[in-house]
């Protein structure tokens, strides 16, 4: 058996999506845990509430994801002790990027979307690859269903080109309920064609009044 190799990783599947609005942010992920063609469990959350206004959703290898979430939660606790305040979403965004790059040569097999409210109360979504490369965007999808979902979000949320000058905000003008409905539709579609997505959808909405959780049943096949 090799000293390193792909026995150390497995892909537990799943999809994560986040959409930033004017004064809210929606973060959603399915709850199916799979290995190969097997379903391990239908009710496993991929979402972690890191701070008052910061929520992280990750898909990939569940062992690494759990370790990453625990790591960030511990760092956030330290930050609170040292600064006597909660971490902002952009700050957590940078911390996540650094944490991922720290393991550049033995990566966390985790594909992340970080969602929350920035310091001005506007919706804030950061999207990452497995080694920490990140960007602030108006919306993002990561995981096994991302290639099915991103084109639909591009179409519906009419993201302005990042090449435009002056730079246009990618935050969507949709209302909170409209964004949540879009997320439900997009997951229902991904569930049809992606075998790793399904069972149940967990939707987290962050706005000025706090964090709200909602669930939607998805197809179980």
């Amino acid at each position, binding site marked *: 058996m090799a000293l390193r190799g792909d026995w150390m990783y497995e892909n537990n599947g799943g999809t994560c999506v986040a959409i930033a609005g004017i004064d809210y942010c929606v973060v959603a992920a399915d709850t199916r*845990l799979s*290995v190969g063609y097997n379903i391990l469990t239908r009710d496993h959350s991929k979402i972690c509430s890191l701070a008052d206004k910061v929520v992280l959703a990750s898909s990939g290898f569940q062992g690494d994801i759990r370790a990453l979430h625990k790591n960030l939660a511990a760092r956030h606790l330290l930050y609170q002790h040292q600064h006597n305040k909660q971490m902002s979403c952009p700050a957590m965004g940078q911390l996540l990027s650094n944490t991922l790059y720290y393991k550049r040569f033995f990566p966390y097999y985790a594909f992340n979307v970080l969602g929350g409210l920035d310091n001005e109360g506007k919706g804030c979504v950061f999207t990452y690859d497995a080694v920490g490369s990140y960007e602030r965007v108006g919306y993002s999808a990561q995981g096994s269903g991302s290639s099915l979902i991103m084109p639909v979000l591009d179409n519906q949320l009419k993201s302005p080109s990042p090449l435009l000058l002056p730079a246009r905000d990618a935050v969507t003008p949709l209302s909170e309920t409209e964004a949540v409905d879009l997320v439900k539709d997009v997951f229902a579609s991904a569930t049809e064609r992606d075998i790793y997505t399904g069972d149940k959808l967990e939707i987290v909405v962050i706005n000025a009044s706090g964090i709200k959780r909602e669930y939607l049943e998805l197809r179980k096949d």
Partner: protein
Amino acid sequence: MELQRSMVDGSVCMKDSAKSEISSERTLYPYVTGTSIIGMKYKDGVILASDTAGSYGSTLRYKSVERIKQVGDHTLIGASGEISDFQEIMRYLDELILYDKMWDDGNSLGPKEVHNYLNRIMYNRRNKFNPLWNSLVLGGVKKGQKYLGTVNMIGTHYEDDHLATGFGNHLARPILRSEWREDLTFEEAVKLIEKCLLVLLYRDRSSINKFQIAKITDEGTTIFPPYALKTFWGFSHFQNPSKGAAGTW
């Protein structure tokens, strides 16, 4: 060329002072293995079941291996995979429980805590490329709250109302998904478990007809003595198998 013990994980290897390490001891592949574990919650607590076989590759070397053990007052652990690594895990867990008891503060570690500790051990060993080659099921009850979780050798862990490892995932869980209920009595739960164990006996070549069931409730733990199930081989297809091909054996 000399033998050196690593300060990091205690592994021994041959080292040439001029060159880096040439060979080292780490789990490369399992030797003596246990097959599936099945676990499920029922009305009063949690049930774990397994057979008592320890296979050495394709040889059924050991036939009385206890693969389900008690951990503290509130937890049962069942292990499949490398038996010696399970014994190592029991050493870790017994030490954890001992230190917890030594505090003598009226508190005791519940199944959630033990599972979390185990998850970290398994994940950290995987990070050092020296895994404990096991898939474990942890079940328990504490203050009326039932818990059932699992963790494997690379650190993937989750909880559910019913769980299995290895072949049990393929053969037992579909049965459990269709017939498990929240309010099973102990007798009904045993019947359901025996149904799963029978399928595993017929279809998993590394299982034997000697099973052990363990239950845990708020009142305490019971690991029942091993027993055998009745099998049926009288299918018409098995009678006179060479009927259609004279001269065959």
